[in-house]
């Protein structure tokens, strides 16, 4: 079931009939999903429904069992070796646990892949890193070590690290779930700004309020399939399937 995207251009990210099995267990079943350029797509669903696995398949941290993934018309699923490394440069990813490199400063974190993978000259990499840190409001922490930062700050550095590589799409896996409530706002602010600048984003998150306000489309996953997809008003205001209804009921109860 593919929802028509609101913008009729070639999709920036296109997932076709994606399947993923771990040994015998099937975690994703025939996922179809496309994200138009500049679109912000939200993925929601209960724990264990395969949201992270789907995101990780998009940059092949997880190897799809079958199906294809295209980025801006190029096959991600066919890439091998160095070609895959180059493809990953175009796909920014922010992890739930951030995974900043503890042995490198904030600036070092943001510069490493620019220098080693993108082969940018050091001065240019530094300038770009500072620009991105400015963007997420952390230029003053450039020389700090990750351990000295709050969770929200670490998350924003992780975002800057991905953005500095000029990706065509950004994947976020529960960007706020490890954060204290008062730190969530600063992170959402960065994402909102990215959206306004036209970044294509695929976000797994439980921030329903943010989804309602900022998402172009919301995708509901359960049991490894896309159960329902559509604009936020439809998904939240007029859910069709029972599974989505009960999920929304559970979530809204949790939020009270």
């Amino acid at each position, binding site marked *: 079931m593919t929802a028509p995207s609101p913008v009729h251009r070639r999709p920036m990210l296109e997932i076709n009939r994606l399947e993923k099995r771990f040994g015998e267990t099937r975690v994703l079943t025939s996922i179809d999903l496309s994200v138009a350029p500049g679109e912000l797509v939200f993925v929601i669903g209960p724990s264990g429904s395969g949201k992270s696995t789907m995101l990780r398949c998009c940059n092949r941290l997880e190897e799809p069992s079958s199906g294809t993934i295209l980025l801006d018309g190029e096959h991600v699923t066919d890439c091998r070796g160095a070609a895959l490394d180059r493809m990953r440069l175009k796909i920014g990813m922010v992890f739930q646990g951030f995974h900043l490199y503890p042995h490198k400063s904030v600036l070092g974190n943001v510069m490493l*892949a620019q220098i080693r*993978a993108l082969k940018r000259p050091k001065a240019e990499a530094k300038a770009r890193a500072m620009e991105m840190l400015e963007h997420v409001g952390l230029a003053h922490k450039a020389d700090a070590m990750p351990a000295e930062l709050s969770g929200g700050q670490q998350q924003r550095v992780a975002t800057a690290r991905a953005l500095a590589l000029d990706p065509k799409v950004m994947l976020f896996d529960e960007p706020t779930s490890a954060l204290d409530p008062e730190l969530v706002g600063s992170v959402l602010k960065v994402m909102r700004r990215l959206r306004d600048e036209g970044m294509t984003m695929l976000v797994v998150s439980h921030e329903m309020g943010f989804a309602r306000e900022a998402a172009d489309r919301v995708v509901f996953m359960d049991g490894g399939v896309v159960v329902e997809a559509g604009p936020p008003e439809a998904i939240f205001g007029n859910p069709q399937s029972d599974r989505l209804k009960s999920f929304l009921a559970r979530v809204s109860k949790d939020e009270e």
Partner: protein
Amino acid sequence: MGDFLDLFLNFEIMAKSWPLLAKGLGITAKLCAAVIGLGLAGGLMLALGALSPRRWLKWPAIAFIDLFRAIPPLVLLVFVFSGLPFAGLDLTPFLAVVIAFFLNNSAYYAEVFRAGIQSVPKGQAEAARATGLSQPQAMLHVILPQAVRNVLPDLLSNTVEVVKLTSLASVVSLAELLYSANMARSVTYNSSPLVLAALIYLAILWPLVRLISRYQRGLAAH
């Protein structure tokens, strides 16, 4: 007491044997440099092999590590020094020692590196790969620096063992520190040169041993 001082702490004999021991110390130093350098390099390669997903790399590396951890280094040394000549390979004592201890040390260093690499959370490698770094780049710039830091005490303590190990070279008549001291002992019929050698080893290794204890206590504390 007089006997004891005369036999074990005879400064006159120590002074006389010092030039010989100093020469031996020089050879010990050369040996350490060769054996530690080779052991670290070989150990790193073996550890990467043992952690590789490729079976044809993984199992031979693990077999190599276990094999050379099971054979006493002295047995390996005697085998290389007096066994290989039967196969037409005549080695100088120095070369025999370097080969034997390379096999032994790289197995031990490999275990340390392996533990270190495994101690780095999987998310670190994933984050590196997700930003387009290649596997070797992720290993070099992200995993290894953290791995080495996590097992620094073990690397250090293994290196202390390697330095102590070089004393076994005396068995194949390599004129390193212990051999020279034992030589001086048999000439003077007095154990003071051996005691002097022991003091030299202590002077070099005691600070390191202290450092290791500190370090391990620090790690245990948190």
